[in-house]
């Protein structure tokens, strides 16, 4: 770790402050509580000194200095506008200049009421302006994308947005054009601001030049009810602020948290907020009589208890549960029903790596990634799965870290990282070679040496690694060999919380193994004697058991197997054969014909709770309104069900639950055990072409329902990406169509020939409009596939139920 810069003492406005060298004067002033007006300065962007608003007077210097670019020096005496007439005049003059061409749009500008220019002009600016000439006029607003609207008249040319795109997201779609008198922010003609981080430019714009189309004229800051929450879309755990007007969510903004998301959130977190208020939401319990009729909670819970008392019960959950719900479910299943058939996963890593993540917390944090000397990303497309981690990796690269990605598809880290493309399922083999140091002169050898020599390396493993059993353990062994940090990065917000709470067939809370008596005893000390110590069935085995009628009651908590499970046929067979299906979620959706009972769950921003990030950091989310209708937080429903079955969970409030949870989930060490690495061989069905899939950031997921602007901006229709050599061999033309046939099904998709995908493998996005890819899969996220060109394009032959071509965008 670099040595801490030694402190420097200086006085600002007569008050002394001691800060490390290299600190900027503006930051030092903030520590003293002195607010210096500024527009272009942003704590997470490099200083640029573009707006000239933060003038301060420094004794001994001829002219005014900009506080945001001047680093502190020992014994420096600074006078801000509070104590220096010259600085005050400088600031007043500068504001007068900025307001010369600024339109009098305040009443119709969305930024009105929360606009730094408005506030700072009222606080530090001139009362009136001497400028009487006509103001410069532009055509406005210009849609940079369906999400972001640009108004160049309001822009004060602070370049925060262009610097964000340059330094943070790397998607440099907007720039300062016509530098000079007519300078303005603009985008290249015909292009779209197609970046998953475009929303951040709206939030950091100090005026109303960049506004969101979702929030256009919707509310005013004084009329909005605000709550601090945690984003529930992915495991990044971004700190957000949810704005509600009259009970309806109107906006989501990022909150500053230098430990997690700095000041950024991705566009999905920012613009996909309408799912809970959507038409599909069901807020009353339902019970199956002739059809699904509304009923009271007690009646439905009573009937469900009747069905499940003494029956063979299984629980499947999605990745959306808060930590408290997962813990309550884990206790409900094991204590109330005495079953271990519960699982939250759809990618089954297994092995020591998973147990390590379940047992411990904060072994690798965002800071470690930021300060890493080298980062190895394996089987993880960070930009599409955990976008804020992607930004942190870019930040590390900007500080000089060497970044390597082992994946079957080139990710958006391509400009800062070196990609080792390998066929899906081969990741384990590549890691194995990295452990041995790589063949002489090969890329792997160079990567291995870089990882070994780097200081504070980090290995980030993603869900694609689960394609080959125990591949994650090879990544763990590699990280041990390199002395690097290891982190298994799940995709969904509730995944890590569910894993640590024990929603897992073989793991109890805190990653304690069910099969090991001593670890089981630690849990039994709190929960009482557990009826079965046999590890239960994992997610896929539960569905198979349902299909074979070995399960009587199947609980589906926040998961829709028909779309989430990578085997649509199995999911359908399971739902048709299990006698009783209880759905507990925000909505019924496609489970309407199957559900025998429905229990309405409260949305994430309607209830207290905690969500655990991929690092293991548990963060609190606060409710912004009461649960809609009769819906309740999931843990309350589980507690009610436990009572109905006659084995109450023993906690009446979320505080009691958390007490019990904290006791069991304290980080603990995991006893080593050898993991049999099943041969570094090639998976058996490596015939012609390997199809692999993973969900993209903006897809048809249920939590993105209603986010029409977001989907118009970033969602792509289903496609199949083929390597140029394969395309040639299979006579596929870029832009043409191909019929993709796997063991489970077939579909006709538009072809994209690109070298972004590894040779011998084809990529199909998991859940884009036009194709639910789980129709093509049979249990895993990879499959052997054959491709053949389809003449005459999309309107010709259609596989399955008709694949919408790019023109028929849903």
């Amino acid at each position, binding site marked *: 770790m670099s040595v801490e810069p030694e402190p420097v003492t200086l006085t600002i406005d007569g008050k002394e402050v001691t800060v490390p060298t290299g600190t900027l004067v503006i930051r030092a002033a903030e520590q003293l509580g002195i607010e210096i007006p500024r527009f272009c300065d942003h704590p997470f962007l490099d200083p640029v000194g573009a707006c000239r608003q933060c003038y301060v007077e420094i004794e001994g210097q001829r002219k005014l200095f900009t506080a945001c670019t001047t680093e502190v020096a020992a014994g420096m005496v600074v006078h801000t506008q509070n104590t220096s007439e010259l600085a005050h005049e400088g600031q007043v003059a500068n504001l007068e200049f900025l307001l010369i061409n600024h339109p009098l749009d305040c009443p119709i500008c969305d930024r009105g009421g929360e606009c730094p220019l408005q506030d700072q002009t009222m606080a530090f600016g001139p009362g009136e302006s001497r400028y009487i000439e006509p103001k410069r006029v532009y055509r406005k607003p*210009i849609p940079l994308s369906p999400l972001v609207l640009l108004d160049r008249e309001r822009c004060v040319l602070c370049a925060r947005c262009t610097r964000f795109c340059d330094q943070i997201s790397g*998607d*440099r*779609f*907007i*720039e*300062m*054009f*016509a*530098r*000079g008198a007519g300078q303005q922010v*603009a*985008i*290249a*003609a*015909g*292009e779209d601001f197609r970046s998953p981080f475009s929303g951040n430019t709206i939030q950091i714009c100090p005026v109303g030049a960049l506004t969101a189309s979702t929030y256009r004229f919707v509310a005013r800051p004084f009329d909005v009810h605000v709550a601090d929450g945690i984003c529930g879309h992915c495991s990044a755990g971004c700190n957000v602020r949810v704005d509600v007007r009259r009970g309806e969510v109107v906006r989501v903004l990022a909150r500053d948290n230098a430990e997690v998301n700095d000041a950024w959130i991705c566009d999905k977190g920012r613009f996909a907020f309408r799912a809970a208020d959507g038409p599909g939401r069901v807020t009353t319990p339902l019970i199956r009589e002739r059809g699904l009729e509304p009923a009271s909670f007690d009646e439905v819970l009573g009937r469900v208890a009747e069905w499940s008392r003494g029956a063979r019960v299984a629980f499947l959950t999605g990745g959306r549960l808060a930590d408290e719900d997962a813990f309550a479910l884990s206790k409900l299943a094991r204590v109330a029903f005495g079953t271990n058939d519960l699982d939250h996963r759809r990618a089954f890593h297994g092995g020591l790596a998973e147990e390590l993540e379940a047992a411990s917390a904060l072994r690798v944090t965002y800071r470690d990634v930021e300060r890493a000397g080298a980062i190895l990303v394996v089987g993880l497309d960070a930009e599409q799965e955990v976008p804020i981690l992607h930004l942190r990796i870019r930040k590390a690269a900007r500080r000089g870290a060497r970044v390597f990605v082992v994946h079957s598809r080139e990710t958006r880290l391509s*400009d800062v990282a070196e990609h080792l493309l390998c066929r899906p399922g081969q990741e384990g083999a590549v890691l194995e070679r990295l452990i041995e140091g790589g063949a002489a002169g090969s890329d792997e050898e160079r990567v291995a040496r870089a990882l070994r020599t780097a200081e504070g390396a980090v290995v980030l493993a993603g869900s694609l690694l689960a394609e080959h059993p125990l591949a994650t353990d090879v990544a763990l062994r590699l990280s041990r060999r390199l002395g690097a940090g290891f982190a298994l990065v799940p995709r969904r917000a509730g995944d890590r919380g569910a894993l640590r709470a024990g929603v897992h067939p073989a793991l109890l809370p805190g990653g304690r193994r069910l099969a090991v008596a001593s670890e089981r005893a630690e849990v039994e000390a709190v929960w009482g004697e557990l009826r079965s110590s046999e590890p239960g069935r994992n997610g896929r085995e539960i569905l198979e058991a349902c299909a074979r009628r070995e399960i009587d009651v199947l609980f589906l908590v926040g998961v829709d197997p028909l779309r989430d499970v990578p085997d649509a046929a199995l999911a359908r067979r399971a739902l048709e054969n299990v006698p009783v299906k209880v759905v507990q979620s925000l909505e019924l959706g496609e489970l309407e014909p199957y559900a025998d009972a429905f229990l309405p769950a409260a949305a994430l921003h309607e209830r207290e709770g905690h969500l655990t990030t991929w690092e293991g950091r548990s963060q609190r989310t606060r409710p912004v309104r009461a649960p809609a209708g009769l819906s309740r937080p999931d843990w309350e429903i589980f507690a009610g069900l436990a009572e109905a079955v006659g084995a109450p969970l023993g906690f009446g409030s979320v505080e009691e639950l958390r007490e019990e949870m904290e006791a069991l989930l304290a980080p603990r060490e995991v006893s080593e055990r050898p993991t049999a690495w099943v041969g570094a061989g090639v998976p058996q069905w490596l015939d012609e072409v390997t199809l692999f899939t993973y969900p993209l950031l903006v897809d048809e997921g249920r939590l993105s329902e209603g986010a029409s602007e977001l989907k118009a901006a970033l969602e792509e229709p289903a496609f199949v990406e083929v390597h140029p050599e394969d395309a040639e061999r299979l006579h596929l033309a870029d832009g043409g169509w191909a019929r993709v046939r796997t063991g489970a099904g077939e579909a006709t998709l538009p072809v994209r020939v690109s070298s972004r995908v590894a040779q011998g493998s084809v990529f199909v996005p998991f859940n884009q409009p036009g194709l639910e890819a789980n129709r093509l899969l049979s249990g895993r996220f990879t499959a052997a596939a054959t491709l053949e060109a389809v003449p005459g394009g999309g309107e010709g032959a259609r596989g399955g139920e008709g694949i919408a071509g790019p023109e028929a965008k849903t």
Partner: protein
Amino acid sequence: MAVLTPELRAEAERIKARYPAGRERSAIMPLLYLVQSVEGRVTQDGLREVASLLGITTAEVEAVAGFYTMIRLRPTGRYVVSVCTNLACALRGARGVLEAARRTAGVPTDGELSEDGLFTVHEEECLAACDAAPVVAVNFANYDRMTEATVSELIEALRRGEEPPPARGPFPGDFRLVSRLLAGVPESVGAGAPEATATAEEPLR
């Protein structure tokens, strides 16, 4: 459709090779001139091609191109007549010279293309020849101590196809040729470029 012919593309790679690895974007100025030499101005396609050559986004290229007056993003004639109207020249009557030049060339507003597509007259910042004010540059070659009469005569001569010698150095040739030279590419490579394209495609302003 590609703006650069295959030979010019190879030339572009040679230009890029002059700069250290990872710093290819510094080759943006010569490449812009190269693209300008093909179409008589830098079109959106030209910007996109330079961007793909350098592996940066089109917006970054247009941000650079938008600053320089010698990189013409709008339709441009074969002769760019730049009349310096800075302090020294202005005092010596540059405003009159500009009006005369514009009238004779038939250019409606500053920086626009003349009706016959031959001339673009625009107000230029300092041409660094204050001793010879007022100065007029044709395709970046200076003509000293111009008056309203001499500038009209100069434009008429150019319209007749003559090549009046500038104050210093040879007659530069038409705008495309000058761009080619500014790109550091010998004239012979990929010669025979088509006439000035007066497409009125209005970029985003």
